[in-house]
C-alpha cells in the first residue's frame, strides 16, 4: 500500500516535471494543459481570500500565472506543482492585502469607537458548514473593503497584528483599532442577516 502511494507520488512528480519542461520549451499545447490543469485550484484559493473584491480575483489569478511563467525554470519538483503555484498565490494575496491596507482610504466610521465588545452571536452554531461559509462571504461582501481585507488577513491567513503592522507600515495599535471596528461591523452585519 505504502509502495503504491509512493509510486503514485513519484508518477505525479514526474508528470509535473514533464509538463514544466514542455511549457518552458514554449509548447503552446502544453501551456494549454498547464492552464486547464491548475486554474481551478488557483482560482478557488484566490477567490475565497479576495472574494468580496470580485473584480480583483481574475487579475490576481493572472498575476499568479505570469509570475509562475517567469520563475518556472526554478521549479525543481520538490513540492508538487499545485502547491508551488499556491505558494505564489499566497504571496500575491499578501501583496494585495498589504497594498490595500496601506492606502489611506478608510470608511467614515473609522474615527468612531466600536459601540460594544464585538462578540459574534453563536448563530453560526446553528448553521451547517456550507451555510456558514456562504453567510460569512455575504457579510464580508457588505463590509467596506478595508474591513473585509483586515478580517481575512487576520483570521483566514492567521497573521498576527504585529506582522500586519510591520507589513503595512501602520502601528500595531492602529491595526488593533481597525480590527476592533471591523469585528464590530461584521457582528452588526451578521445580526442583520440578509
Amino acid at each position: 500500500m505504502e509502495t503504491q502511494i509512493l509510486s503514485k507520488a513519484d508518477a505525479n512528480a514526474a508528470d509535473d516535471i514533464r509538463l514544466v519542461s514542455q511549457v518552458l520549451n514554449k509548447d503552446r499545447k502544453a501551456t494549454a494543459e498547464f492552464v486547464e490543469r491548475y486554474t481551478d485550484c488557483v482560482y478557488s484559493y484566490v477567490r475565497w481570500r479576495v472574494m468580496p473584491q470580485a473584480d480583483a480575483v481574475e487579475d490576481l489569478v493572472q498575476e499568479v500565472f505570469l509570475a509562475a511563467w517567469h520563475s518556472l525554470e526554478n521549479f525543481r519538483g520538490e513540492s508538487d506543482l499545485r502547491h508551488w503555484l499556491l505558494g505564489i498565490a499566497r504571496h500575491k494575496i499578501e501583496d494585495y492585502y498589504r497594498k490595500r491596507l496601506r492606502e489611506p482610504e478608510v470608511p467614515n466610521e473609522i474615527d468612531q469607537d466600536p459601540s460594544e465588545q464585538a462578540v459574534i452571536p453563536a448563530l453560526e452554531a446553528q448553521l451547517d458548514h456550507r451555510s456558514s461559509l456562504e453567510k460569512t462571504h455575504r457579510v464580508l461582501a457588505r463590509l467596506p473593503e478595508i474591513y473585509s481585507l483586515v478580517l481575512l488577513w487576520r483570521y483566514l491567513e492567521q497573521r498576527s497584528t504585529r506582522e500586519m503592522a510591520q507589513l503595512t507600515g501602520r502601528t500595531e495599535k492602529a491595526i488593533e483599532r481597525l480590527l476592533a471596528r471591523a469585528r464590530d461591523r461584521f457582528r452588526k452585519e451578521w445580526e442583520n442577516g440578509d
Partner: protein
Amino acid sequence: METNDGDEQLSRIFREVLQAELQEPAPSRLKARLYSALVRAQQETGPLQSLTKSEAAGRGLCVFEKLVQIAPIGEKAKSPFFCWACHARILAEEMEDAPIFWTNCPYAEFQKR
C-alpha cells in the same frame, strides 16, 4: 495577542471557512485569457515551439494549425501564435459557453466542465 471573545469567535468562523473551502471551477473565459497571456509572455523571449514539434510530442492540432503544419513553409513560419487571429480566441475570452467546437482547440477545451 488578542484574547477577546470576538477574536476567538471570528477565528472559529474563519477556520470553518478554511475547512469548507471548496474547489470551484474557474470561468472558462478566465482560462482563455490566462492561456493567451501566457503564450504572449512566452513569445517575448523568442519564438514558440513549432507545431511540428508539438505534434511529434503527441499533441493534437486544430484544423487551422494542421493546415499551417502541412503547408510547404519553413519551420520558423510555423511558430507564431496563430490563435491570436482566430475567432475562437476572441469568443472564448469574452463569454462563457462560447459556441466553439473545434477538435484540439484549447479555447474549445476550456469550455468543457
